[in-house]
């Protein structure tokens, strides 16, 4: 009797293990951060890029309209690529574009804006990258669509024309 039960337990145990691993095989093992969680935007204060004044986030995102926070840097090549698209988005009056200058040198950032144009209504400074962490950002470029103090959508990496269309469809 004892000899019969033991193999059954072992076999059922291995079947159990097999199913766990088999189920695990179907799961994707690449991590993908969720991009629309309706998180409330963080509270922070930052210095502005041109006149070096201290501003609070409460006074920036306080109106009932769409805001686009774009994290950029002059040393970041994809930022250069997406910049013309953001310049075009500036024409859309329903959306206010705010820049967050990430770990940049003042001189280089000013040159970037002078060369490629300024689509931002405000540019905030993030010299040590801590403000980007408050936002839950991974790096540059990264873009957040904000409405009523909530992050509606997060775009990691450069924007392309399809994503711009998506943003415009949100804003409509």
């Amino acid at each position, binding site marked *: 009797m004892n000899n019969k039960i033991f193999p059954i337990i072992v076999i059922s145990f291995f079947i159990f293990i097999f199913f*766990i691993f088999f189920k695990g095989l179907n799961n994707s093992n690449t991590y993908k951060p969720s991009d629309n969680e309706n998180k409330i935007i963080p509270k922070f204060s930052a210095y502005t890029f041109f006149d070096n004044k201290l501003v609070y986030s409460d006074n920036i995102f306080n109106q009932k309209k769409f805001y686009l926070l774009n994290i950029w840097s002059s040393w970041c090549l994809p930022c250069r690529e997406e910049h013309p698209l953001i310049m075009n988005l500036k024409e859309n009056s329903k959306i206010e574009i705010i820049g967050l200058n990430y*770990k940049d040198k003042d001189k280089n950032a000013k040159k970037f804006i002078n060369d490629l144009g300024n689509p931002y209504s405000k540019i905030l400074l993030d010299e*040590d990258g*801590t403000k980007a962490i408050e936002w839950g950002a*991974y790096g540059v470029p990264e873009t957040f669509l904000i409405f009523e103090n909530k992050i509606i959508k997060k775009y990691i990496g450069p924007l392309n024309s399809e994503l711009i269309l998506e943003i415009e469809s949100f804003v409509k």
Partner: protein
Amino acid sequence: MKILKLIFITFLVFSLNYLNADEIDFQNKITKNLRCLICQGQSVYDSDSEFAISVKLVVKNKINAGLSEKEIYNFLTEKYGEWILYDPKLNKNTYILWFLPLLIFLFGGAIVIKKFINIR
């Protein structure tokens, strides 16, 4: 007198060192348990990427602001999700992970006890 002064100064230097090291140890303990999300298989402590440098700075600022280890983890999981922690929390997605070793241990123990009784 001179020796006394020297001893006093060395004592002072060492005690200051100790304080500072303690704080860095605490910061390292936290950053070692944080995954560098943009690196492959590295902790925030190990990495020198822009992301990791910023996270280290944020952790340091939070420690200085008087937050506890748990509060810092909560802050970061709120921003980046559970994935940033190396030590997964117990929830419905991870209970197999936590209880399977225990189950295997009990199973093995049962076999050993059974054999032991049989021998007797």
